[in-house]
């Protein structure tokens, strides 16, 4: 494989994740997100996990989270009602870092 621009899912597929299926570490209140005009999360998440669906609503999947915390810092309308680190052993495991 040579160097090329890569979509986020392809980049994330290179990483090792141990997804906590029982307990999401980030939870949104989509009613609040609906009213948020700026939606900074669409631009700042390095993993591009925040996207708009056909109706213009936020979709989000915590599975590929890199645990940087940028969305938490940028979410001024507090649509993110829970942001914690994943439980012990869960989440991303970097092999280079």
């Amino acid at each position, binding site marked *: 494989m*040579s*160097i090329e621009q890569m979509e986020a899912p392809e980049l994330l597929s*290179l990483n090792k994740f141990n997804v906590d299926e029982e307990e999401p570490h980030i939870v949104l209140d989509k009613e609040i997100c609906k009213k948020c005009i700026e939606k900074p999360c669409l631009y700042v998440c390095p993993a591009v996990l925040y996207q708009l669906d056909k109706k213009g609503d936020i979709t989000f999947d915590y599975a590929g989270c890199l645990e*940087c*915390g940028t969305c938490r810092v*940028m979410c001024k309308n507090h649509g993110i009602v829970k942001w914690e680190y994943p439980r012990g052993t869960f*989440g991303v495991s970097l092999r280079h*870092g």
Partner: protein
Amino acid sequence: MPESSLGGENMSEEEKFDAIIIGAGPAGAACAYTLAKEDKEVLIIERADTPGSKNVTGGRLYTYALEMLDAGLYAQAALERKVTHEQIMMLSRDRAICIDYHDPSFNTEGAAPISYTILRANFDPWLVEKAEEMGAMVACGIKVNELIEKEGKVIGIKAGEDEMYAHVVVAADGVNSFMAQKAGLINDIEANSVGVGVKEVIELPAEIIEKRFNLKKGEGAARMILGCTEGIHGGGFLYTNKDSLSLGAVFMPEEAAEKRKSIHEVFQNLKMHPSIYQLIEGGETVEYSAHLVTESGYRGIPRKIYKEGFLMVGDAAGFVMNTGYSIRGIDLAIVSGIAAARAIIKAQDNAEVGPQYMQELHNNKVIPAMKAADGYFDILGTPWIYDKVPNLANDVFNSLFRVNGQVPVSIKKETTALIKENGLSVWQLMKLGLKGVRSL
């Protein structure tokens, strides 16, 4: 000696550790190492399966910090390449200027090289292992949920159902320090005080890296890149590891959102810049990571970084210095971890630990160094240095090197015109220069 497992049985308040350290990064590990060396009972708790696997660096480590921990320790450390080439690059469209500073005095025979490139998944476990060899206990895969407080003093931690007690709890839990928040010492992070760094590790054979960067075996380059963030406050970086390159960029997320630019996209564009692409061509991306980095320097240090029974070290305390041409974090983490340990060792009673820690941070020059670099924050806050300045620099080089048989315009005249063309004024640049001189 207290039980090392967190496997159910709670300790009583009487059987206390001397210190429980939350987070097995360089700050936590250096603190544990120093304490254990003095026969203190110390436990590090880390939420990752193995130390380092949640951590990201640009990056490099300035070696003096390891020397402070123990002289000669660096020779055994899990490091990548000693940095022999300091580079600054300015990009504009498809053009590039690269300054390469090579100084043999940074790497003289018999002395510790000034800095090494590193990868955290290699370096952090090594440092933790060193702390273990000194006698520290390490519990991985465990997330600390709460602090236990009594009469306003921190006396222990809660992880799930388990409770553990210590004379001092050290928050080495990184930039998103939930522990410092729980202790009531910091509020939520302000969006304008952090950058978000993204990075790809790109594997390439060592010989190709050495050829492309003009390095001898074991030598490395560290490169800062200006003008690669599409006008967003931030910059790029490129570090040579043994068999890989760390290419990344840091962005002010607030500006990315305002400009409605996806940082993922802007970073992917950087890879394709012809002057970057030729360095990474043929390589294979093996990892994509992201991390927050404190950008406000001295003024970003929380008003109080301790309370009775509780200290904050490393990123948790805001110890990051960014001058634009050098970025320091891991060294300050290690040195602040040492300061915390020395305070715990020296203090006669628990109330003295915090004030002693502040004293040690001054002795170790962490806070004085950050204070001295405070002025850079204002320079780096100048919005046009991220696009107009690199563009102007490239324009000036273009006019210097373009020979086309015409009568050349005087450089002074041409430069004045180019400054104007870039929407800048000589006055603005002079003011920035003056600010620069003042902050040095």
